[in-house]
């Protein structure tokens, strides 16, 4: 009987000790986890296009963290949805139809292009650009900095003379992808 009591006491003491130790450690060595918003933001394509209905990728990341649907990012497509679902531990959803990419431009990345003869220098597109990729001043011709353009399409609508269009990025040796089938087809020609 006394042995059992001793055992209980010893075990109880040890568990209390470790409990206290762990409790102290969890407070003392508390690690601030990577905020979920930052992680979500890192998964988004950063086009800042606003197609999700939020003014940029970060606001959408914040919204997703607060329970917004994960399938609203059109430029990210399914890959992004999968990654977000993986991160949040939720089911993968098909991309929201209203947020699907405009298929007229093809699936390749595009950049905005200003038809410079038609530009009247109204600066409206400059105000619309989320990444400051348009250069110009009032009553001066504007132009797109192609390397900075994310192809978000936001500058097209505000243009009063419709001089902005989205163009696919030309394929060069630098961005060329090996495509076995494509080469084979070319050879036959």
């Amino acid at each position, binding site marked *: 009987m006394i042995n059992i009591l001793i055992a209980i006491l010893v075990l109880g003491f040890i568990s209390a000790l470790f409990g206290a130790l762990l409790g102290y450690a969890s407070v003392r060595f508390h690690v601030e986890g990577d905020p979920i918003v930052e992680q979500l*933001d890192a998964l988004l*394509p*950063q*086009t*800042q296009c606003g197609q999700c209905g939020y003014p*940029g*990728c*970060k606001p959408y990341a914040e919204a997703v963290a607060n329970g917004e649907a994960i399938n609203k990012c059109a430029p990210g497509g399914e890959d992004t949805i999968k990654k977000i679902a993986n991160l949040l531990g939720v089911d993968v959803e098909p991309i929201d139809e209203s947020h699907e990419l405009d298929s007229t431009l093809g699936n390749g990345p595009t950049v905005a292009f200003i038809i410079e003869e038609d530009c009247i220098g109204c600066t409206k597109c400059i105000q619309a650009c*989320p*990444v*400051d*990729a348009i250069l110009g001043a009032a009553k001066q011709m504007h132009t797109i900095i192609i*390397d*900075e353009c*994310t192809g978000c399409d936001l500058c097209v609508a505000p243009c009063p003379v419709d001089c902005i269009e989205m163009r696919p990025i030309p*394929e*060069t*040796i630098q*961005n*060329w*992808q*090996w*495509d*076995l089938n494509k*080469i*084979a087809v*070319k*050879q*036959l020609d």
Partner: protein
Amino acid sequence: MESIIERILQNKFWNFHGGIHPPEQKTLTSGKPIKQLPLPKQLILPLQQHIGRQGDLLVKVGDKVLKGQALTQSSNPMAVPVHAPTSGTISAIRKSAIAHPSGLSELCIFIDVDGDDTWKTREICEDFTKLNKQKIIQKIADAGIAGMGGAGFPTHIKVNTKPEINFLIINAAECEPYITADDLLMCEQSEAIIDGIKILEQLLNPAFILIGIEDNKPRAIKALQHATKNIEKISVCVLPTKYPTGGEKQLIKILTGKEVKSGTLPIHSGIVVQNVATCFAISDAVINDIPLIRRVVTVTGQAVSKPQNVWALLGTPVNHLLEHTGFVTEHDSSKANPPVTSPPVIMGGPLMGFSILNEFVPIVKTSNCILAPSRAEMPSAFDNNSSEVECIRCGQCADVCPSQLLPQELQWSAKAKDHQQLNKLNLFDCIDCGACAYVCPSKIPLVQYYRIAKAEIRQQQQLDLKAEKAKSRFEARKLRLEKDKNAREEKHKKAAAARKIAMSKRSADGGSASSAVAAALARVKAKKKAKSNDELSVFSIEKAESSSVLSVSSDEVTDEKSQVKAAIARAKAKRLAKKDDVSTLKVANKDSEEKEKTIKTVKTVDDKKAKIAAAVAKAKAKAKKEQQPEQSLPSSNEKEVKATSTKTDDKKARIAAAVAKAKAKAKAKKTQEKDQLAVMSNEAHAPFKSSNEESE
């Protein structure tokens, strides 16, 4: 270090993992001398022929260029110039298919060859040992030399190094089957190559120079040994034939036993590797002032009847080389649609080369071989449909991989596009040698999968970089907008505060111009008040007066006449009083002096003229009034009649007075307005002010 040298001197070398022994096929071309070809009609020079950036154009369409003239230049150290390989006229500068597996078009300079082959003026250097390091590096850079072994890394960057160099390794292994370009170059130009090595020695000052050469080139070995017999520092290392001995890291491993760490360059281990053809180009450039405008190209394969090494000017279209080596166009009747008019032509070796899009693709700095195989020789090149079958996990690929990777695992991850796993498996240590695909019994084009995966990862990295940039730009913009907004608000706040302060100052300081406005406003208010007061007072006075008049008259009437008449008069007077305008009853005032006084006090605000007019009207009214009591005395009847007449008179006077008053008011208003205007234009209004002050 010393033990390494000892071992090298004893001709004992290390070995690298894996490797293959494909059928040699070098004898097709190794016995024949390098052929000089007639000049082609047109040269096509891509602006970018190497790793790095393309230079800026120095010429325009229609320009005449001389042999060796630079066509591009750039301040970017990673860009090397392109030179005119012969004299001629620039006929076009446009996009054209280049020697790249993609078959994409890049900007090219088209030169119509004039056939004279006129050199630019050259400065031939008799003794390069007198040149300093910078001068030599400049010469190498100006000559446009890029590594001629394959990758095409700009040579002047590779030789311009700070750290101490233990080994300078000259890569003469030429391990790919078929290719004999370096072999023949060593046989025919061994002295020039040794000169090039000496120049490199001067630049790098290495402890030891090793020439790595495979034992399947006996003539070249002999020639090199002969040329280097008096130079102690240089050692010709004859290595067993094995593919890919010519790989940079593999050659280093074989010769020195050192492994270059993943992700580092040989230079970090104190080793520089240069291709033997590059050495020749360096000696040509430094000693003879000949820029890199030609190279030896092996034209071989069973589809050419006279396979041979040729001196090809850079920019020579491939079909010019094929024409002069007896290229047989094979017509394949079995494949009717579409008819294959020309058999495949491969640029580079059979293991690492790629099929070219058409035969007008130009020779560039890195093209060492044109391979035109026959169907029997290389069926895979004819067959576009891959005969790939499932991986059987035999593991042969891992056995032959010179980089000790796991090709099978890599292949699965590449197919699954699992970039993370690919990085874990060190995909980027793969040298694209193709040994794994060569041994694969399932005919899986492993290297192609790796190439695709590498390109995808690079693309992804670029996209990530771009996304990062876009993110930072977006945040910066947001910050800027926020700042602008805050600044605007701040400005508005400040402006409002400033206005408030100015207002309070103005009200405190009466003398200031702005206070004049306030003063004017105050004046207007005071005037309005005064007017209403005036009217009120006048009204009350009149009331009192009229009542007194009435009482007086009624007394008189009761005294003298009947009450009925008095009542009638009263009623009439009452009616009169009721009807009466404010000003009219003034006239009825008995005490003219008193009235004058009150009017004066009340009306000083008004203009003088108005006063005068009022005074006149009053005077008239008074005169009439004075007449009235006199007339009313004689008889009651007459009095009545007269009273009515005075009434009419009174009326007239009243109307006149009203008109006068209205006039005065209008005038006062006008002057007030004028006053205000004047005040606004900051002009002092002495008369008005004084009158105002008088009134106060």
